[in-house]
């Protein structure tokens, strides 16, 4: 089976992100990057699919040279081949999906895995867009997957419950937490990853349809207020919640 998995290189969840001086992008200085956690689940599912059906897993990332670190992690987990679609420019979800879909078409994947969203811009659009561009089914936020010859059954999260769907391959599947427990790369995997080449390709230029005007951090949390420590404070607390915080 030809298995494709798309991965993004995103700021580490433990890093304090700063906005760059132009106010439009994240300042990469001092930021640790990592394999997007939902994509990591996608990588694991891709590897499990290969274990079941054989074939190869190709991991692809769109971005600049730093994305190679994330590709190496995926190789160390066990992917067979890595491709960097090299374009350091910032793109919107449409422009990202366009280039990834072009690659998927050229490669001819039987199944494509993505994370349900990247934890940097949180658009949650890329998987669905790729499927649309390729004219194939897309099932998002998948927590359980059973692939059979040419078709699959997926369980996905919906508001307040789960939904079980059936569809045909090829398809795009976007991974949600719970789908699997991503494996650790092994030490042997890390060594092997150093030797596996990362193929570099220059994707077609695609114009973004959405352009960031300005980025802002959420307002700093205001200092808490203690109105008292016994029952006599209740009335004042209710008044403040009602009149100042306006939550009740």
């Amino acid at each position: 089976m030809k298995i494709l998995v798309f991965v993004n290189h995103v700021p580490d969840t433990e890093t304090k992100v700063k906005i760059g001086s132009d106010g439009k992008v994240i300042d990469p200085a001092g930021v640790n990057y990592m394999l997007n956690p939902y994509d990591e689940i996608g990588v694991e599912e891709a590897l499990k699919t290969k274990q079941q059906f054989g074939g190869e897993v190709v991991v692809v990332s769109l971005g600049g040279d730093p994305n190679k670190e994330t590709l190496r992690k995926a190789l160390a987990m066990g992917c067979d081949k890595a491709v960097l679609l090299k374009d350091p420019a910032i793109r919107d979800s449409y422009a990202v999906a366009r280039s990834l879909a072009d690659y998927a078409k050229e490669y001819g994947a039987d199944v494509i895995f993505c994370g349900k969203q990247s934890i940097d811009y949180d658009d949650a659009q890329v998987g669905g867009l790729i499927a649309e561009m390729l004219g194939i089914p897309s099932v998002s936020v998948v927590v359980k997957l059973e692939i059979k010859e040419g078709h699959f059954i997926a369980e996905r999260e919906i508001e307040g419950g789960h939904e079980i769907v059936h569809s045909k391959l090829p398809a795009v599947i976007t991974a949600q937490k719970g789908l699997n427990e991503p494996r650790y790369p092994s030490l042997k995997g890390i060594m092997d990853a150093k030797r596996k080449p990362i193929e570099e390709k220059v994707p077609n230029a695609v114009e973004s349809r959405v352009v960031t005007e300005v980025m802002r951090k959420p307002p700093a949390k205001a200092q808490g207020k203690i109105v008292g420590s016994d029952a006599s404070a209740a009335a004042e607390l209710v008044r403040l919640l009602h009149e100042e915080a306006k939550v009740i």
Partner: protein
Amino acid sequence: MLRDLARDFTNAEIRPLAARIDREEEIPKELLKKIADVGLFGTAIPEEYGGGGFGKVGFCLAQEEVARVCGSTAATIGAHQSIGAQAILLGGSETLKKKYLPILASGELLAAFALTEADAGSDSFNLSTRAEKINDKWILNGEKVWITNGSIAGLFSVFARTEKGITGFVVEKGFNGVSVGKNEKKLGIKGSVTNTIAFDNVEIPEENMIGIDGRGFLIAMETLNSGRLGLGACCFGAAKEMLEMSVAYSKQRKQFGEPISKFQAIQFMLSDMTTHIYAMENMVYKAAFKLDNKEDISLDAAIVKLYCSEAVSEIADQALQIHGGMGFSAELPLERFYRDARILKIFEGTNEIQKLIISRQILKQNGKWNS
């Protein structure tokens, strides 16, 4: 990536079990299996023998992370890889290496290093376990004490006396006549098992001799040199963890209306800890780098062992002091770190023995520093 892997793995898989490992005095089998699967039993073993091929530097990085969360697990991995398997790697013939290193690197078998005897501790040269050659077999008789991994290891690198001097042998636990005593009760690293191993007319195939007959003591000493660097890395890892705990606690604990981190007495302890840690990091990696470049590290190893184990003991004491009564309580992991640190001044050569090595060497060099 190695450090990230080791950190993610130890935080997720070992940290939650560390208190239980100490309490139940054993590492769960499932955890040993996970450590094997991820490759941490073979970090430094060359790739051609199935290991990770990360050298001593890589081994130290990984051990740091393990020691940050669990001294018992670090001791288990260290005894297996850094001395048990290391003796074969350093001294063994190609046949012997091919026979055993791959199954040790994969963690299918664990190794132990068996040098110490009841009457040969610091004076290990005085050992009396005997190996006699009869036809094409060696026959081993004697008893080793304080052997880390004794009850969980599948093979032992054993040092014994032959007609020609001291010689190393690989002895499988399954060989007839090998028996393992009960797990010793200890002050610290309780989850790392320690046993007496007895050999009663154990037959060993000729090919299991490590290196040349009569040259084993050198191999044992070189193995310990390398082991001492891994031990230093454990001290360094544990020290960093205790510093982090101490800083967090001192900022949060208030007395006299302020966080105790505002008191100079506490600040100075944090400064001492930080300074020790800086020195530890530098000496561990300088020595590990030299070893990977095949330079002689006998002096470095003794200094690393001595300094790092003294420093981590002092740090454990200060960290406990900063935590006050809470530090003494078994509610927090600190008392475990305090107990686990104590062995580091004793095994792999007591610190007194390290001082002997250092002074002997510096006297030989007429006090001249090599740089």
